[in-house]
């Protein structure tokens, strides 16, 4: 059983390496100019050489993203609880929420810049505005799946709405919540980088923007690699926490060991 698992992991790792090797070979074989598609090795070298300069930008992007994500979680959980708990809220807030999330977030960055000036604030707010939606929807869905019998049992005991939410509703939403966190964290990066690209003089988004304008394509790709790497790391962290907290929902795997 365990052997199979390790084997699967090794195969997956090999395939990923193969992907980058294929990319490398393709670039060399086709004589691709590094102004169009740089080789992965070239990108890694650029990344290594420029790392001291990139580091503060990485921290800037990571900081804005985490802040936006954190606020997004708070807002998302709050809205999700309201939508899930009350019919009226469902009917009023849900359409508004869907409307808002349908707006391309590029469109709101100029408004945020107008209000708060360029820099960190628009980045945080864009990231917040893009990542709270999946959280709110998933929390609401989780609350809606509470068994009516369970609610009756607790109501008959004299439990308040808050007690039902706390003891049954919220724990039941945890698998939904963590699934949404994994989506939301990647969204949060998109929001931050978007705002940094349009209106900031710091952050990976800004680095990529200036790299593009000076045709430093390897550096541009290095920025993409950094973003992808950060996304993967944070996704992995949340997966790990998810396995610990909501192991009960995945009982077909080794319980609580995932």
């Amino acid at each position: 059983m365990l052997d199979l698992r390790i084997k699967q992991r090794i195969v997956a790792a090999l395939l990923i390496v193969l992907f980058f090797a294929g990319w490398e070979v393709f670039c060399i074989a086709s004589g691709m100019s590094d102004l169009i598609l740089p080789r992965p090795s070239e990108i890694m070298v650029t990344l290594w050489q420029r790392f001291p300069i990139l580091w503060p930008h990485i921290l800037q992007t990571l900081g804005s993203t985490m802040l936006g994500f954190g606020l997004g979680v708070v807002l998302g959980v709050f809205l999700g609880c309201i939508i899930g708990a009350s019919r009226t809220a469902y009917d009023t807030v849900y359409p508004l929420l869907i409307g808002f999330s349908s707006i391309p977030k590029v469109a709101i960055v100029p408004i945020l810049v107008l209000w708060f000036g360029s820099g960190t604030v628009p980045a945080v707010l864009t990231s917040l505005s893009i990542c709270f939606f999946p959280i709110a929807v998933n929390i609401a869905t989780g609350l809606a799946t509470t068994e009516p019998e369970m609610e009756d049992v607790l109501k008959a005991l004299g439990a308040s709405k808050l007690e039902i939410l706390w003891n049954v509703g919220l724990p039941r939403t945890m698998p939904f919540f963590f699934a949404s966190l994994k989506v939301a964290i990647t969204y949060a990066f998109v929001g931050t980088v978007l705002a940094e690209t349009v209106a900031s003089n710091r952050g990976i988004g800004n680095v990529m923007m200036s790299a593009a304008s000076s045709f430093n394509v390897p550096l541009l790709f290095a920025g993409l690699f950094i973003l992808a790497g950060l996304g993967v790391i944070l996704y992995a962290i949340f997966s790990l926490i998810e396995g610990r907290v909501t192991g009960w929902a995945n009982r077909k795997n080794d319980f609580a060991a995932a």
Partner: protein
Amino acid sequence: MSESQTPSLSVAPGTSAPEAGTHRTPAIELSQATVTFGRGKQATPALSSTTLRVQDGEFVALVGPSGCGKSTILRLVSGLLRPTTGAVIVGGREVAARALRVGMAFQNPTMLPWMTIEQNIMLPLKIVQPYKASYRRERKGAFRDKAHALLAQVGLKGFAGKYPWQLSGGMLQRANLCRALIHEPRMLLLDEPFGALDQFTREELWGILQDLWLAHRPTVLLVTHDLREAGFLASRICVMSARPGRILDDSPVDFARPRTVPMTFEPDFVALNQRLREFIVSARAGAAPVEAH
């Protein structure tokens, strides 16, 4: 436990006196209660004028054709639903959801999957006073002992630390009974609790429920469609008509306790079943006159 064996004294002296006429306060009293869902043209009557009295410590079974409003009566008594007209008085007071704290169990055992059996069973203690106040202090002490004692009574000793998915349906239903009883409610409302179980598990659980009732003596309202189950467990059986329901027949069941499964095949018992069955058949015929067999 000692206080629960003196049913006649169970109503607190401070509560307002119900209507005169009986020397004892009934634990449950429905007087001409009706329930109608919806309004105007969509109005569907679920319960026609129903009057029912249940004495403290009685075990009453409600039987009848499906959809006849048996569960509606349970929801009225538990305070989850208010009567459209008429009154529902429980423990000498008009029903209000907050004040009752009855134990309930449904066909679906609804154990929370992220909690162990022990934690699931202790859930009511987290919500109901006076246990709530000392829950944090006692959950690893007196409350856990209480949960373990109940589990032992239903034959689930050693399963306290297991998760719900590790137990069979019959075991979950036993745990469900424990959860309904842990806070020592004066009243237990059971809505077809054994409906989803196989015949043998069901008969086994009848015995367990009877033992629990004899030990704790709560007032029990049991909704069931199984006439043998009603006869085995109840001290009184009420037969209901088809929707909108009302009580057609109300018979005491005097077989000696503790009752056993073989007793359910004795002539007296079978005769009782036959009689109830005919009531229900005619009640169903009234609801669906064109139904052919």
